[in-house]
């Protein structure tokens, strides 16, 4: 049974050279017992910081500067360190985003799940284990009796996330904090996990705080929604009110970004040109040493056929492990195909980078998911963009500068950014630089590997708009890899569905809404959370199974 939570005047500051910077400003809210409050906002909005503060915890370099937090009859901020320790894991439990990073790989799951109960001496071990098994069953985990004896690497990501929920709930906490618990999961897995979470939260009438950037997910879980931006509250209200009649303009822009919208296709000239720009036929590829017949030890891709015409955007969709990234790497020449051929503009491409002339390399560019790792942190934006221009075209001096300005302009970045290092850019800006670097080579084909997955909804939507615009203006083609059907549907002319290294189906834009399609495509389509209450209840049981 949950306890009421009241937060008033909460202020959290971060220490910087210039003094304290406020990161959470004067936050007031309360949660009735047994209710779920969602904290929603983009990265840097202070949502996780607020959630952590409910445990009396501030991250390194941050400090809770003022306000009060009451959970039931406890004033969290006035507790001594020992009392805070007694509170955490006992009365307030935390479920983190990455369960894989939160479990100790060298101890069995049961050891870790019963740990909170043992640390706080709530019950003897046998009783705790019995309770854990009951929780496993409640969370719809397979083999609840024996799953506890496995190690974290022996269960799937979705299962691990639910096991972490069991760990959090074993001490019957008054307040459960869920910090983006499903963000790292595939859509079909996400449904199972969301269902399990909602059931245990409802049945135990736990008070919960659900931190997320995904409005559609939040709509399924929360009773109330609090919209945060730059550490300040923009709006708070019941879930229905926020979704249907948002008052704040920022909430409205969040909702707008969450709605799928089709972006103009541009000159998809499949009919005008008979020769495809890229033709992948019978492609198989994999990793590991090759046997005598040239087959690699682990075959990731099998017998893939894809045809892409100039100016077209093709989406490749599938869950993690489906081989979609490997397909992009094979086209880019990073992994040699074991069988089949990749024909680019009428000529067969060399199987590895070494076999490809510079011109072929220039015409195919790759844009990676994590802009953080895709930009060299020690090079300024100017140098990052200058290199492909010098390398492929030999530009120098004023011509080089002019082209860099032009590229920044093209991706809608201010020219002043040129002198900054990637560390001084926001996530969306980095992704734009990332895109600009690919454009600098003036490619015919850009391979986009999950380019918006690491971005907030609003920022991601803006990047997608930009990509659609570039396609219209420059006529580049995209091979767009994503696990998010919404994203793919909104930018692509055709969708290739992949599962376990095989191509299952190909769906053209005109048929997106018309079925019937391959059952797996239907499953993926149904699994994308919709921005309405009750969606989770409507999803057929077959999907969740």
């Amino acid at each position, binding site marked *: 049974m949950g306890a009421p939570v009241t937060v008033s005047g909460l202020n959290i500051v971060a220490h910087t050279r210039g003094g304290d*910077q406020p990161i959470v400003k004067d936050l007031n809210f309360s949660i009735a017992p047994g209710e779920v409050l969602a904290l929603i906002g983009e990265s840097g909005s202070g949502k996780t910081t607020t959630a952590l503060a409910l445990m009396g915890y501030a991250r390194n370099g941050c400090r809770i500067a003022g306000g009060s937090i009451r959970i039931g009859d406890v004033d969290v901020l006035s507790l001594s360190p020992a009392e805070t320790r007694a509170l955490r894991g006992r009365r307030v439990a935390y479920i983190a985003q990455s369960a894989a990073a939160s479990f100790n790989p060298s101890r069995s799951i049961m050891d870790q799940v019963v740990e909170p109960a043992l640390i706080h001496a709530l019950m003897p071990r046998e009783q705790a284990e019995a309770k854990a098994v009951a929780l496993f069953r409640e969370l719809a985990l397979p083999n609840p009796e024996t799953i506890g004896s496995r190690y974290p690497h022996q269960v799937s990501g979705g299962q691990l996330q639910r096991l972490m929920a069991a760990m959090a709930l074993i001490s019957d906490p008054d307040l459960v904090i869920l910090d983006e618990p499903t963000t790292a999961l595939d859509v079909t897995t996400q449904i199972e996990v969301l269902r399990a979470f909602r059931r245990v939260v409802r049945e135990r009438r736990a008070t919960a705080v659900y931190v997320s950037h995904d409005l559609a997910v939040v709509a399924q879980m929360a009773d109330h929604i609090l919209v945060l931006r730059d550490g300040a509250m923009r709006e708070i209200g019941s879930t229905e009110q926020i979704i249907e009649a948002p008052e704040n303009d920022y909430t409205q822009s969040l909702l707008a970004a969450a709605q799928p919208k089709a972006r103009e296709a541009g000159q998809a000239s499949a009919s005008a040109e008979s020769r495809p720009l890229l033709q992948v036929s019978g492609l198989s590829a994999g990793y590991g040493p090759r046997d005598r017949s040239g087959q690699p030890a682990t075959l990731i891709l099998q017998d893939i056929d894809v045809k892409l015409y100039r100016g077209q955007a093709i989406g490749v969709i599938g869950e993690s492990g489906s081989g979609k990234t490997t397909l992009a790497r094979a086209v880019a*020449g990073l992994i040699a195909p074991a069988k089949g051929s990749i024909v680019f503009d009428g000529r067969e491409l060399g199987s590895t*980078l070494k076999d490809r002339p510079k011109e072929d390399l220039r015409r195919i560019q790759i844009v990676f998911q*994590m802009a953080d790792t895709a930009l*060299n942190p020690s090079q300024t934006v100017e140098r990052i963009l200058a290199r492909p221009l010098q390398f492929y075209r030999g530009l120098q001096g004023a011509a080089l500068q002019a082209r860099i300005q032009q590229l920044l302009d093209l991706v809608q970045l201010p020219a002043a950014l040129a002198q900054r290092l990637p560390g001084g850019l926001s996530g969306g800006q980095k992704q734009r630089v990332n895109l600009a670097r690919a454009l600098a080579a003036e490619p015919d084909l850009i391979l986009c590997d999950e380019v918006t997955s690491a971005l907030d909804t609003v920022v991601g939507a803006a990047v997608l708009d930009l990509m659609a615009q570039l396609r219209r203006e420059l006529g580049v083609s995209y091979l767009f890899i994503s696990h998010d059907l919404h994203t793919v549907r909104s930018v692509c002319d055709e969708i290739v569905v992949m599962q376990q290294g095989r191509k299952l189906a190909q769906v053209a834009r005109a048929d997106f809404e018309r079925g019937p399609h391959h059952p797996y495509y239907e499953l993926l389509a149904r699994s994308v959370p919709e921005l309405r209450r009750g969606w989770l209840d409507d999803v057929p049981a077959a999907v969740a199974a």
Partner: protein
Amino acid sequence: MNDSTLTLPPKPPKPRPVRPAVNAVALLSGAVLLFWLIAALIGPSLMSQGGASMGEDAVFAPISAAHWFGTDFLGRDVLARVVQGTRYTVGVALTATLLASGSGTLLALLAAASGRWLDAVLSRAVDTLTSVPGKMFALIMVAAFGSRLPTLILTAAIIYLPGAYRIARSLAVNIDAMDYVTVARTRGEGRLYIMLHEILPNIIGPMLADLGLRFVYVVLLLASLSFLGLGVQPPAADWGSLVRENIGALPLGSAAIIMPALAIASLTIAVNLLIDNLPGSARGGH
């Protein structure tokens, strides 16, 4: 990086400390280092009395106006001896360290940016070097080639190369797995560009910190070789040999043994503080 994105509320007109490009610790340690470098370059010519003159003064004399650092076991001026030793200690140690760290880092970059085969060959070769005990190797080298300066420099460089290689390789392999290196490869960049432009700038901070540490080791190795009488040969002396020569002064607490020891300490500490506080290095810059 938040400075530019967050707007600060207007502050009362209070003199805000201007953030220097290099902080005070770095300046101080830089000054100490510069002092020793100058001493190594022009010190001996500035000394009025050579370290060789002896006889008229007392052995192990205390600090006085005539002998700022006192006198040594032969009555020579310790200040002159320390200044003369600077050239050996700073010169030999610095050259050896730069050689060890430089070649270690280069080999590591080559190993990381190349295929598995070259990486394996280089790594095993360096492992072989690691398996030879350092002091033993130094003794063998000195026994075989005599204690000439090039031998000493090369010996110290070889002994400390594997450590630098190991650290640089583990850093470089991580950087090599980054997407921006992959992007550079798909662009068609050569191995040298990837080594020097993509990987090196991102490992240089930790490698400089390692260089400082390694410098200390080399100074200590040379000092201990000299202490054993196998390093720089008399009448020339580095700081290590000065400590050994004057070991007899230890019970007397004479300046003759304290001063060279202090010189070693000041140099090694200054190098480390300077590198740690360089802007942009692992700790100082952020």
